[in-house]
Structure formats: C-alpha cells, structure tokens
C-alpha cells in the first residue's frame, strides 16, 4: 500500500537515478536467480501472471476511505510467488501504472524498492509464522500487516533520504507528516490483511499444492 504518490520533479535527478539504479540491480539479481538457481515451472509463471493482473487492477482503484486510498496486494504477491518473481511483478505493475499516468516515471525506481520490501517481509513472515500457527488466514494476515508496515517504513526512509525539491519544511516536520500518512495507510492494511487472508486460506483449501514447498 505504501506507494510514493508524488509528482515527477519531487525528487532531484540524482536521487531518481540512485533509486532507479538500485531497483535495476535488484531486477538484474532476480533475473539472474530465475535463469540459474530458481527456474520457475509453468504453474508458478501462471500464478505470477494472475497476481500481476490482480495487483495492477486493484492498484488503479481509489477506495473511498478517509478521502481516497489504495490497495496493491504486494503481500499476496510475496506469499504466492516469493521475493524473486515478486520483484519482477512489482516492477511490471509500477511500469504499467506510470504508463497510464498513475505515479511518475521518475519514482518507479523508488516505488519498486518500497514494494519489494513489502513482498520480501510478507514472504518471510508468512514462512516464519508456520512455527507459531498453521492457520493460513492468520499467517497471511499477520504477514500482510508486517509487509505493509515495512513498506511504509521504506517509503518514509526513501522520502527523507531523497528530500523534496522546493519545500521549506524541516526533516522533523516531514517525518511527522509522513508518520500520520503511514498510520492511515496501515488502516487500509486492515482491509488488505483480511482480503489477503481470505484469498490465501481459499487457495490453501482448494489448491494446497500452490502453497506447498519453498516459494522462491
């Protein structure tokens, strides 16, 4: 849910390039791993295609809560496909979003990093929670909260490190403003956690093989 929703020109060219280069490095590593170590089977590619379409579609809908919020299903991407394929999915979703005018092209790199943190943390927590409970709804719900919390932290960090062009607020003031925004975002995470929990529980009930084994 933590998408940096600022116009192009908010970051300096230097920071746009920095976040893009880091994002491209991540994508390069993901592609290398997919070609060498973690070759995906056709079933996984099909799941990846479905979650990409679902994440893109839901990301374009502004939900009328607190004046307008988004969901993006990044934790579901992490749970169903893992962080390697998930990195490519969030890149595609962000590119397509920028192409239709939702978010700036310059912020795609930063947003890929933010969304990657959501995918990675959700995947790690979903796997880690297996020691505490086997209930899929609970595991995916908690993983969603953790993933989206990490995404909000990443979003705040990226904005604070980059700075915003043309504003006179201090770092403390921006941090305070972004903290409130993150709290609202986490409110939306409740809906996303329930939704993700229900989807994963349903998938686990009708197609447990999709959730079995180590997802890469």
């Amino acid at each position, binding site marked *: 849910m933590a998408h940096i929703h600022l116009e192009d020109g908010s970051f300096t060219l230097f920071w746009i390039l920095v976040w893009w280069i880091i994002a491209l490095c991540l994508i390069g590593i993901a592609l290398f791993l997919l070609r060498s170590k973690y070759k995906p089977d056709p079933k996984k590619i099909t799941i990846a295609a479905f979650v990409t379409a679902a994440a893109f579609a839901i990301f374009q809908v*502004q939900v*009328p809560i607190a004046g307008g919020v988004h969901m993006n299903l990044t934790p579901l991407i992490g749970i169903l496909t893992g962080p390697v394929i998930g990195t490519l999915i969030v890149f595609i979703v962000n590119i397509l979003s920028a192409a*239709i005018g939702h978010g700036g092209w310059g912020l795609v790199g930063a947003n890929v990093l933010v969304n990657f943190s959501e995918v990675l943390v959700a995947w790690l927590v979903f796997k880690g929670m297996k020691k505490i409970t086997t209930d899929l709804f609970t595991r995916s719900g908690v993983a969603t909260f953790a993933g989206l919390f990490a995404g909000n932290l990443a979003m705040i960090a990226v904005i604070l490190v980059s700075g915003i062009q043309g504003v006179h607020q201090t770092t403390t003031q921006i941090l305070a403003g972004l903290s409130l*925004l993150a709290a609202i975002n986490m409110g939306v995470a409740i809906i996303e956690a329930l939704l993700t929990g229900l989807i994963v529980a349903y998938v686990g009930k009708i197609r447990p093989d999709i959730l079995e084994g180590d997802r890469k």
Partner: protein
Amino acid sequence: MSVFIERKGLVIFGAILIVVLIAALAAYQMTGSMGIEDRYNTAVGLPVLQQEEGGTFFGFSAEGNPVLYLIVLCVLIIVCFVAYRYFRI
C-alpha cells in the same frame, strides 16, 4: 490455556488489528478526509493541487488517464501477438 495456544496466531492477528485500527483512527482524526495526492502533498509540504473530479462508482474511481489505458492495452496486445507469432513464447 490450551485454547489460547491453539489460537495463538489468531490472537496475534487480532491484537495487531486493534492497535493498527486505533493508530489509523487517531491519524484520521488529526488529518481529516483528503485524497491520496493531497495527503502526500500535505505530508511533505508541497502545495495541494486542485484535482479534476472524474466519474466515480459508489465513491470508487480509477486512477490515471482513460486514453492511456487504451493505448497501453493496444501496445500490450501487439507485444503479446509479436511474442507469440515470432518467438513462440
């Protein structure tokens, strides 16, 4: 006690949900209702721009430009056709 252990995961989920809900409601009380762009601009100190009101469906609305949706769809169809026709992907 055994019920608690069995439902430990659900208790954790419920506790997180309550904490998050309280924090979100408190933040909403402080900031009030505003669109996502306005919320970001206000948070970082950028001027709040006047947004053109588009069509909504029960308050739900689509982001982006509808013309760009069509262009992107056409480009994707062409790319998929070429990929399938010439590369058999």
